[in-house]
């Protein structure tokens, strides 16, 4: 049984933990609103770009298609681009991402493919390295900037495209969290390179003039598309991180509250026991006289 003093110390330490989690929760709530707005503001560009891509890719097919669209012709070497957060305190977000990446990697390895990882963000490195010590390739550190923006997405995309052009991999998948709500962030796996051909065949109704030619436009468009995908992933990551953090910290604050009330009851009971013992001693002493 801990002494009264120990109990008091315990209660105080849980109280200060609660203060920290509460503060972090409020910060995350405020940041979430901003991150969500940013994610929404980025959508018009992505949808428009996808629409243009679809109409162009339908026209430029076959042998003349650029390498980024057609692929290298094999699908032996896979690259998994895993987008994790840089900071913890966000519940199961990162472990869910890592889990999804691991499952995908094992699936590919079982199918006889070679797998390599490209890690964005700090938090995925350690668990993935433990599981696949030899497969961790390059990575990109986003912790140096406060909020990763388009410049970072551009840098990542350029590096990936350079690796692709150098023939270091055949297929790249992007693993990132999709922000659904503050409670749910689902890990999503998308094929990034080669750019997946649009499934909906676009009707070639209007005669559109192209300047320069369709092929040249498409060639310019594809890297842009990859960049936009990565930018979208970074925005989703930001919103997911804040959402998950808010929920996790809310839970932590509530748990701390429960713990405090339990400890307080134990503390009061012990104090009362001590008082009762003292009283009995005094009464027993008085009676003995």
């Amino acid at each position, binding site marked *: 049984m801990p002494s009264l003093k120990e109990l008091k110390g315990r209660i105080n330490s849980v109280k200060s933990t609660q203060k920290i989690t509460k503060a972090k929760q409020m910060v995350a709530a405020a940041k979430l609103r901003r991150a969500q707005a*940013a994610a929404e*503001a*980025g959508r*018009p*560009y*992505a949808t*428009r*770009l996808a629409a*243009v891509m679809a109409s*162009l890719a339908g026209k430029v097919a076959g042998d003349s298609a650029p390498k980024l669209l057609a692929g290298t012709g094999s699908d032996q070497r896979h690259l998994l681009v895993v987008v994790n957060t840089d900071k913890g305190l966000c519940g199961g977000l990162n472990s869910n991402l890592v889990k999804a990446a691991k499952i995908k990697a094992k699936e590919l390895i079982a199918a006889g493919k070679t797998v390599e990882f490209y890690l964005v963000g700090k938090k995925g490195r350690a668990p993935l390295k433990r599981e696949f010590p030899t497969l961790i390739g390059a990575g990109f550190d986003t912790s140096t900037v406060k909020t990763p*923006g*388009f410049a970072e*997405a*551009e840098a990542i995309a350029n590096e990936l495209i350079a690796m692709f052009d150098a023939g270091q991999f055949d297929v790249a998948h992007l693993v990132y969290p999709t922000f659904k709500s503050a409670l749910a962030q689902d890990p999503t796996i998308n094929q990034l390179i080669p750019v997946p051909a649009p499934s909906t065949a676009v009707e070639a109704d*209007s*005669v*559109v*003039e*192209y*300047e*320069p030619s369709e092929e*040249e*436009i498409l060639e*310019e*468009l594809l890297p*842009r598309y990859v*960049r*936009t995908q990565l*930018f979208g992933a970074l925005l989703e990551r930001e919103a997911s991180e804040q959402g998950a953090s808010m929920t996790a910290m809310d839970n932590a604050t509530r748990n701390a509250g429960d713990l405090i009330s339990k400890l307080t009851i134990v503390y009061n009971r012990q104090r009362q026991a001590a008082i009762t013992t003292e009283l009995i001693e005094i009464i027993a002493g008085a009676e003995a006289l």
Partner: protein
Amino acid sequence: MALHFELVTPAKLVRSEDVHMVVVPGTEGEFGVLEGHAPFMSTIRDGAVQVFATANAAPEIIQVRGGFAEVNEKGLTVLAEHVEG
């Protein structure tokens, strides 16, 4: 009727408004878009997009970098990676 003009960057929708004419710096030369322009698609070079709100107004100049322009029956959409100002 006027031309519907949209300027979009990855970060946000910069403009969405009805204007008289827009001059876009295409890779193979500048081109002006009025309403009822034929469907057209072009990459753009770094330069200034000039927006004419009315026929006689002085152009409003927006610097853009990297992107492309699309004209369809709905209007003109400029997708740019960076917009200054």
